[in-house]
């Protein structure tokens, strides 16, 4: 029988340490919606999303009340739209119409984001892929709830540098079209290497083609829970430190597993994976940077940060694997800047630079995330930052990502405000030296030697 101490521990995690289920994400395959008639395609997409997800939000809310655990977001991921729209869309504007349909469907079923306005071009782009990518700036400026991602590399294929170069332009255009709101469009656009097919977290969520027709993926969070647990073991050995993170991560993931199974049962949709990611929010006590400080750093970015983050990321994965029947997605520690008050403070006080963040991405679960840079940063420099990050992912066989915001009209020393969960950020300094001759080369970077495993 469960006892008072255990009940109190769980409820304090929820009420004082911001434990929550960050998202229930319903993955929906749109492959059976494909039609060469654009209007028919739009209708098929809207109808399938509506039929599949009409009970998602109410079911999530009900599960939340049964267990007394907040379920913050209910979301949808769909098959990469470049594949779905290829037969019907002949121009980037045609793809934008699909984006509007997705946005309408998201609003109709009440989810806050729909991910999958995406193209997977890690080795090359089809005509449809390129059209979708070119449509992203307009699509993101015309919609509210669309999330877009482009996978430009993988360990098995190498990096498509033509796509990397194009993404530098696309990010800048997206920033321009949303410049009245601190270029907020770029917060909904991520460039990926080794993108997982089952990630429930935005902006990189899409329903991979390896998935079934529908799937429930759940993302749990809880940086505050880990931080509080570590407060009790200050000064203890690395063994104790690691064990504490692992045990805590395990408990948190168990809640995710419970919610995932319940959502799967109630919606009649197979359970996919639990993603245990320490996903910070700008709320006080919900910060990954604060965990790093609790581990013994004066500020995130100080020497030792990469080692501390490596420990955190690895122990979170180890704890999570034991706790859930299927673990997937990104699972680990996210290090966004604008969404984490501790990271914002670190960037403002000068302890954290883009170069240190890049080093941290070698050992975190994703990559350069929610970093605001000067609006006049050259497109080729943005492509260079992407290429560096993709190379880290390709060589180290891990997912990496770039979600970077060139804030038009602002420079180093200014601040930008995205609001809500997206937070706010100081504009960070970018290395001023050029890489344009490098990124302007045509073609792709070959797959690394360790990709040949056949």
């Amino acid at each position, binding site marked *: 029988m*469960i006892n*008072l101490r255990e009940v109190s*521990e769980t409820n304090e995690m929820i009420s004082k340490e911001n434990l929550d289920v960050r998202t229930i994400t319903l993955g929906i395959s749109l492959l059976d919606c494909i039609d060469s008639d654009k209007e028919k395609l739009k209708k098929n997409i809207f109808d399938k999303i509506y039929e599949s997800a009409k009970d998602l939000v109410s079911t999530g809310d009900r599960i939340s*009340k049964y267990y007394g655990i907040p379920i913050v977001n209910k979301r949808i991921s769909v098959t990469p739209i470049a594949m779905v729209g290829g037969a019907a869309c002949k121009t980037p504007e045609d793809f934008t119409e699909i984006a509007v349909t997705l946005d309408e469907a998201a609003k109709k079923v009440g989810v806050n984001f729909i991910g999958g306005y995406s193209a997977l071009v890690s080795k090359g782009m089809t005509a449809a892929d390129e059209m979708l990518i070119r449509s992203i700036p307009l699509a993101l400026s015309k919609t509210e709830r669309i999330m877009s991602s482009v996978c430009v590399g993988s360990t098995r294929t190498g990096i498509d540098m033509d796509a990397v170069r194009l993404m530098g332009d696309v990010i800048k255009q997206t920033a321009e079209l949303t410049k009245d709101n601190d270029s907020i469009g770029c917060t909904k656009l991520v460039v990926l290497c080794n993108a997982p097919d089952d990630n429930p977290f935005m902006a990189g969520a899409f329903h991979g083609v390896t998935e079934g027709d529908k799937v429930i993926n759940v993302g749990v969070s809880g940086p505050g829970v880990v931080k509080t647990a570590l407060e009790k073991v200050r000064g203890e050995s690395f063994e104790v430190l690691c064990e504490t993170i692992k045990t805590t991560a395990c408990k948190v993931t168990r*809640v995710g597993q419970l919610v995932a199974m319940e959502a799967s049962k109630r919606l009649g949709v197979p359970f996919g994976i639990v993603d245990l990611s320490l996903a910070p929010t700008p709320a006080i006590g919900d910060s990954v940077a604060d965990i790093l400080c609790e581990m013994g750093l004066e500020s995130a970015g100080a020497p030792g940060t990469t080692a501390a983050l490596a420990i955190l990321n690895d122990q979170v994965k180890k704890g999570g694997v034991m706790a859930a029947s299927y673990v997937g997605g990104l699972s680990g520690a996210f290090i966004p800047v604008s969404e984490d008050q501790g990271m914002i403070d670190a960037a403002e006080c000068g302890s954290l630079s883009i170069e240190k963040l890049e080093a941290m991405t070698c050992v975190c679960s994703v990559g350069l995330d929610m970093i605001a840079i000067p609006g006049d940063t050259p497109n080729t420099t943005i492509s260079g930052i992407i290429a560096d990050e993709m190379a880290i992912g390709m060589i180290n066989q891990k997912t990496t990502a770039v979600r970077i915001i060139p804030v038009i009209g602002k420079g180093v020393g200014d601040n930008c405000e995205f609001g809500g969960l997206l937070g706010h950020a100081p504009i960070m300094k970018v290395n001023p030296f050029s890489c344009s001759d490098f990124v302007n080369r045509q073609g792709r970077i070959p797959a690394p030697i360790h990709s040949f495993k056949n």
Partner: protein
Amino acid sequence: MSKTIITVVGKDTVGIIARVCTYLADNSINIEDISQTIVQGYFNMMMVVDMEKCEKHFIDVAEELEKLGNDIGVIIHAQKEEIFEKMHRF
């Protein structure tokens, strides 16, 4: 049928258990176990209850208990026991 855990947390005052138990009795909710402590003047109670004979929906009961807590000045939660079982038992 799974059990429900009711927790009551707040500043200690006369009649907390009486008010909660009266509500449960009025709604045919059977108390199977109670444990309670007071730490530094703060009241912390947990009940394991069976709601099988209760005619109201779980979510309505949870909301009514929350309101009752507001009246008394304590925080009352009703949660399905699985969240605690899952987290603390393998």
